[in-house]
């Protein structure tokens, strides 16, 4: 009976797919002003950054034997820099980097 235009449609009961590893509908990389920069030589794989990151942005890359930052979601809270046991992480201003963010049309 209702002929709702396709671009305005909403799933039944507004039930949306749940993310498994990443949530592509809420990319938060553009929240940060300062990003953590890793110096791998100093890192002793204590995993503090992996554990403390509120957004689980640090992952251990087993092949490389190094922690890797997910810049798509890092909000720049700097907790990892604070918690790093060996000062391998330092903070740097986001505009010094040309890479590392998904350019969004709208905030979400």
């Amino acid at each position, binding site marked *: 009976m209702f002929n709702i235009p396709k671009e305005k449609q909403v799933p039944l009961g507004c039930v949306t797919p749940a993310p498994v590893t990443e949530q592509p509908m809420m990319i938060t990389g553009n*929240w940060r002003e300062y990003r953590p920069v890793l110096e791998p030589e100093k890192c002793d794989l204590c995993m503090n950054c992996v554990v403390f990151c509120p957004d689980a942005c640090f992952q251990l890359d087993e092949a490389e034997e190094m922690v890797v930052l997910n810049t798509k979601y890092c909000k720049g809270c700097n907790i990892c820099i604070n918690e790093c046991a060996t000062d391998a992480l330092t903070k740097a201003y986001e505009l010094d980097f040309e890479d590392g963010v998904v350019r969004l*049309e*709208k905030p979400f």
Partner: protein
Amino acid sequence: MASKVHQITVWARGVVQDKEGRDIANGVASAAGKDGKFTQAFDNYVDLPDRVNVPLRKYARISDEEIEERYEYENEKPEIVIVADATIVKGINILRGMEKGGSLVVATDRKPEEILKFIPNRDLLSTIVCVDAKAICGEQTVDFSGSEGGVDSLGIGQGISAPILGALARCTDLVKLDNLAAVVKNQEALRKGHEQAVMSTVN
């Protein structure tokens, strides 16, 4: 039909710049109101409640006649975009909806070229203004008394919003420096922002 509604959008960081962003929008509306214009100033409703550092928007709209469609949620076609924290230009298409010939005001210590390189659709701009708001007046007041329809208890323009408003007056006639001076608290920062802003033409 009603006359043109000029739209000004302010981008700021959540919580830490929520009040300053709102002050910019309120300052624009109050100053234009002193010229007899009809104005609106409001927060983007769905960006609130804000989380720390989330990009959020505040809006001001100015018209020569009474604004008839008062309940728009967003500024679809901003003429002027003001960015209170420079890193926002990197992650959001802030010029979305702008028609050719608009202006951009950014609070940063970098030069205009360094900001423009992060904006792929920079051809929409005619002018860019950069002002080092943090150096002129380093404060970012954090206060929620004016948010969500409340009455602001501190007044407009104590922190970085003052030099940003001063810089805005350089690139547009919609708000004049004298009217801004009548509504902004930090007069010195307002004037310094006006003098020290770096304005350059893009196209």
